[in-house]
């Protein structure tokens, strides 16, 4: 586990009698793009909250960026990035203010912030928009800024919760270019998505069913194992067998 950024062993979380996450064990390596799939209600969100240091497990082990989820959850929060469609940027702050606000929260110094803000605005080609309110920008841009902000402090790992929902097909692919670039720079990417074509872009994919990991392999390996032409078919075969659902 020397080079693993996420390590879990028999990780379990119960809510009363309900076993939301049932003894999951897996590792994610440095620089890997790891797809975390599953039907609604399969336990993805609960697992992700544990890995982000927001929820204590009931039993089992887990380490994220080298920190223990039971005792070092505050350290975990400092060493990860997080982005979801529901929580991304403050709409009533400008692009520049958002970058500085989140950079500050992630602990960047004043000087670092100043440099990084300008570099980022330059790289995203947002000179003319830097002082506009984020709320006035198209969704695709918000998502790109939001991702850039989530990795501004160079975290070991970034968690992306359905980052491309509702985004147009071109922007969706540009977003994945950014994911590839980040992974290329050594940032581990942990991503959930309901777009099965995006599962193909991941190095490895796990599929959760009823709280457990029902399959985990490279996309090619999964397609071979389930004799499927694409990831959509793999997902259907596994998730159709699910006993519990979001109802």
């Amino acid at each position, binding site marked *: 586990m020397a080079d693993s950024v996420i390590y879990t062993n028999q990780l379990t979380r119960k809510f009363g009698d309900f076993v939301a996450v049932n003894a999951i064990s897996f590792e994610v390596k440095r620089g890997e793009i790891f797809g975390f799939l599953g039907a609604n209600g399969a336990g993805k969100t609960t697992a992700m909250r544990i890995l982000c240091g927001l929820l204590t497990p009931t039993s089992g082990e887990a380490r994220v960026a080298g920190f223990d989820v039971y005792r070092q959850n505050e350290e975990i929060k400092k060493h990860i990035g997080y982005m979801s469609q529901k929580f991304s940027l403050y709409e009533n702050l400008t692009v520049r203010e958002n970058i500085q606000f989140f950079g500050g929260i992630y602990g960047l110094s004043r000087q670092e912030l100043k440099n990084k803000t300008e570099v980022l605005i330059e790289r995203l080609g947002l000179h003319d928009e830097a002082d506009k309110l984020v709320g006035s920008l198209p969704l695709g841009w918000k998502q790109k800024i939001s991702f850039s902000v989530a990795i501004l402090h160079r975290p070991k790992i970034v968690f992306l919760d359905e980052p491309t929902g509702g*985004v*147009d*097909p*071109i922007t969706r692919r540009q977003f*994945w270019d950014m994911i590839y670039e980040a992974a290329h720079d050594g940032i581990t990417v942990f991503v959930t998505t309901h777009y099965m074509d995006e599962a193909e872009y991941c190095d490895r994919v796990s599929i959760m069913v009823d709280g457990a990991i029902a399959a985990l392999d490279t996309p090619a390996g999964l397609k071979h194992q389930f004799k499927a032409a694409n990831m959509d078919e793999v997902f259907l075969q596994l998730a159709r067998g699910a006993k519990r659902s*979001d109802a």
Partner: protein
Amino acid sequence: MSTVRVENIKKTYDKGTVIALEEVSFEVKSGELFGLIGPDGAGKTSLFRILTTLLLPDSGHAEVAGLDVVKDLWQIRRIVGYMPGKFSLYQDLSIEENLNFFATVFNTTVQKNFHLIEEIYVQIEPFKKRLAGKLSGGMKQKLALCCALIHEPKVLFLDEPTTGVDPVSRKEFWDMLDRLKARGITIIVSTPYMDEASRCDRIALLQKGKILELDSLEKIIARHPQNLYAVDADNAYQLMKDLRLTPEIESTFAFGEEQHVTLQSLLDGEQFLHQYLSNLGHTGLKIRKITPNIEDIFIKLMLENQ
């Protein structure tokens, strides 16, 4: 016969600075399952709110079942069902209470139209005493659909009912819509998922307030022939980079494990791509000419409209 008629509808916000809909026109036939397909910000919700009389257009004209959306709002409200994208039922009423409330408001009873909702309602009935605010996403969606159906609407408007829903549940939802359509209800549904186009009788592709295309999926595909190839190689990341380097290639976009490559001229793409990529040292090359799918076409139309 058309049940919904939209003529040059225009809608702007913030004193005209934000254009939501730009002179949009289309018709939906009676009994049709019609899809409005486009990303966030395309104008789908504005259009739904105008058609359900909740928002006034800046200009243009629209009718639902022969009634004017501005003048005849009270009559329209009685005959349409609307499921907004954002959950809008009473969070502090139970499943049962919400359903009864909507039936009463529309001067009917749950018993009278139970046949319409039965198949959906039985799935949430075990939790009928639970407050709507405490339901999971999937259960909220089913309750909202029941409430939109309980007065037996002539036209059903569903705004992004499958957003954030997993692929299995999405398929089940569309199967359910097929059965409602079989009962003669006209359904207009919006979605950001391009693959759902195949489930609709006809679709409108919407982007930034404009209809890019409108027809059945087959006809739209036939109208946009492309010199298009699916390309796969051992090193996918390098492949993506290399395909962006030569002027003969008009566009290249990732589609699952493959790149979909459009060539500029009508040259033999298989031969050209094979030679070009082999020279760059690529191995494991698989190249085949393909018919565009809906997402290829949406991308093409977006590039043309930039």
